[in-house]
C-alpha cells in the first residue's frame, strides 16, 4: 500500500512536471479556458448579473481542466502505444491503473493553472465582477472537481485502452462534458433528463459545489461534495473492474489492440 502510494505520488509529480513543459497541455489548461471565458463573458455581456459571470468564469476553468484531462489520458494511451510502451507497462508489476491514475491526476491538476489563469483574466482582463461569497468552501469544491475529473479521465482511458485510436474516440467526449456538467448552462435550465444523467457525472457535482460556494450556500456545497465523492469512488471501482478484465483479456490474447 505504501509502495503504491509512493509510486502514485512520484508518478503524479513526474507527469505534472512533464506536462507543464508541453505546449499543448499549457494550451488546454491555460489558453483554452481564457478563450472560452472570453467568449462566454462577452456573450453574456456586461449587464449580466455578477453571479452569472462568476459561474461562467468557473465553468470555463472546468472546461479547460477537462480538455487537459482528455488530451492527457486519451493521449497518454495513444502515446504509450505509439512508443511501444503500453505492453511493458501492462506487464509491469505495478498495476496499469496506478500508471493511468497518476497521469489523469496530473492532467486534472493542471486545472489549478486553469482556475487561477481564468479567474485572473476574467477579473483583470475582462473586468468581470467576480464575487465569491465563501472562498473557504471553494477549496473543497475545487478539490472534488479535480479528483472527479481525474477519475472520469481514468474510467475513460481504461474503457479506451483497447482502441488503437483512443485519442480520436476520447475527443468525442469534450462537448458532452460541457453540457452535462453544467459548466456554462445550469443543468436545471435544460430538459429534465439532462439532470438525471448529470447525477452520474462526478465533475457535474464539482461544478454544482463550485457554483454553490460562489453564492455561499454551505448546505448545497455539502450535498454536492458527498454525492460527488460517492460518484468518484464508483468511477474508481468500475475502472478497477474494467481494467482487471481488460488485462486478463490482453494476456489471454497476448495483444492489446483488441478492438
Amino acid at each position, binding site marked *: 500500500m505504501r509502495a503504491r502510494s509512493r509510486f502514485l505520488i512520484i508518478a503524479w509529480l513526474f507527469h505534472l512536471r512533464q506536462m507543464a513543459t508541453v505546449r499543448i497541455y499549457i494550451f*488546454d489548461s491555460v489558453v483554452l479556458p481564457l478563450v472560452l471565458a472570453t467568449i462566454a463573458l462577452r456573450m453574456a455581456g456586461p449587464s449580466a448579473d455578477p453571479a452569472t459571470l462568476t459561474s461562467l468564469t468557473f465553468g470555463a476553468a472546468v472546461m479547460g481542466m477537462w480538455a487537459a484531462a482528455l488530451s492527457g489520458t486519451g493521449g497518454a494511451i495513444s502515446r504509450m502505444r505509439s512508443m511501444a510502451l503500453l505492453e511493458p507497462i501492462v506487464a509491469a508489476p505495478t498495476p496499469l491503473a496506478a500508471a493511468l491514475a497518476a497521469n489523469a491526476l496530473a492532467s486534472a491538476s493542471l486545472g489549478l493553472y486553469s482556475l487561477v489563469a481564468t479567474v485572473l483574466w476574467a477579473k483583470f482582463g475582462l473586468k468581470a465582477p467576480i464575487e465569491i461569497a465563501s472562498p473557504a468552501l471553494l477549496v473543497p469544491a475545487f478539490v472534488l472537481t479535480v479528483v472527479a475529473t481525474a477519475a472520469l479521465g481514468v474510467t475513460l482511458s481504461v474503457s479506451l485502452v483497447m482502441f488503437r485510436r483512443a485519442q480520436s*474516440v476520447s475527443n468525442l467526449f469534450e*462537448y458532452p462534458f460541457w453540457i452535462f456538467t453544467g459548466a*456554462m448552462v445550469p443543468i436545471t435550465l435544460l430538459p429534465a433528463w439532462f439532470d438525471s444523467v448529470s447525477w452520474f457525472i462526478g465533475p457535474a457535482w464539482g461544478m454544482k459545489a463550485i457554483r454553490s460556494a460562489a453564492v455561499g450556500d454551505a448546505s448545497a456545497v455539502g450535498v454536492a461534495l458527498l454525492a460527488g465523492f460517492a460518484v468518484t469512488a464508483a468511477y474508481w471501482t468500475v475502472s478497477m473492474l474494467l481494467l482487471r478484465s481488460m488485462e486478463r483479456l490482453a494476456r489471454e490474447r497476448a495483444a492489446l489492440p483488441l478492438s
Partner: protein
Amino acid sequence: MSIFRTTVVGGYLAYRGLFHWLSGRLLVPTLVLNPALQLAAFTMIGSYIGSQPASYYAVGNAVHSMARASIFSATVVIGAERSNGTLSTLLATPSRPIVIFGGRLIPALVTGYLSSIIMLALATTFTGATVPLAGVPMILLTIFLVALSCSALGLCLGAASLYLRDVFFLPNVSIYGMMLFCGVNLTSAENPAGESFARLIPLTNGLHAIREVMMGHQAPLSALATELGLATVYALVAMILVHVFAQRARVTASLDLGA
C-alpha cells in the same frame, strides 16, 4: 503530367495513408458526430447566455467545424510525416515539397467541405435557420472559398511544423482563436476589439457572407473577394515557408531547425 500525378494521385494516396484510421467506425464520429456535438453545445450555450437567436450560433459553428477540419488536415499532412519519422526521406526526394504537400490538401478540402454542408443541414433542421433556395449556390461557393483559405492557413501552420517539433499547438491556437475572433459565437458589437484583425484571417468574411445570404440578402462580393484574396496570400506564404524550411533542412541536414 508528372506534377499532376504527384499532386493529385500522390496527394490522394498519401492522404489515405496518413488518415488510414479515418475509416470504418471512426469516419462518422470524426467527421459528423464531433462537429455536431460542437454545434449542439455552442447553440445551447448561446441560447442561454447569448444575445442572438439559436440559428446564429448553429450556423457559425457549422462553418467553423469545416475550418477545424481543413486546418487540422492541412497541418497533419506535414506534421504527421515528422511524427512518423518519414519527413527527412520525403524532403530528400526530387519532387518539390509544396507539390507533395499541396496535393494532400485536395482530399482534406473535400472532407471538410462535405462535413460543413452536413452541419449546415443540421443547423437548418434543428434551429430554424433557413436557406433561400436561390442562395444555395452562393453558400456552396462561399463554403468552398472558406475551405480554401482555411486549408492555406493550415498549410502555413504545417510548414511551421518543419521548423518546430510541437505540431498541434499552433492549429489549436488558430482554431480557438477563430472561434473567438471570426464571428462564430460573438457579433462584431460584442467583440469590437478584434474586428479589424478578424478581417485578415480566414472564415470571418466568408461566414459574414453566408449569414447575409441566409437572411435573403445579396452576398457581399467584397467579402467573397477578400476570402479568395486571403486564400491566395496564405497559400503564397505557405509556399515560401515550405520552400525556406525545406531548403534549410537540406543545408543543415537536420529537421530540428527550431531546437
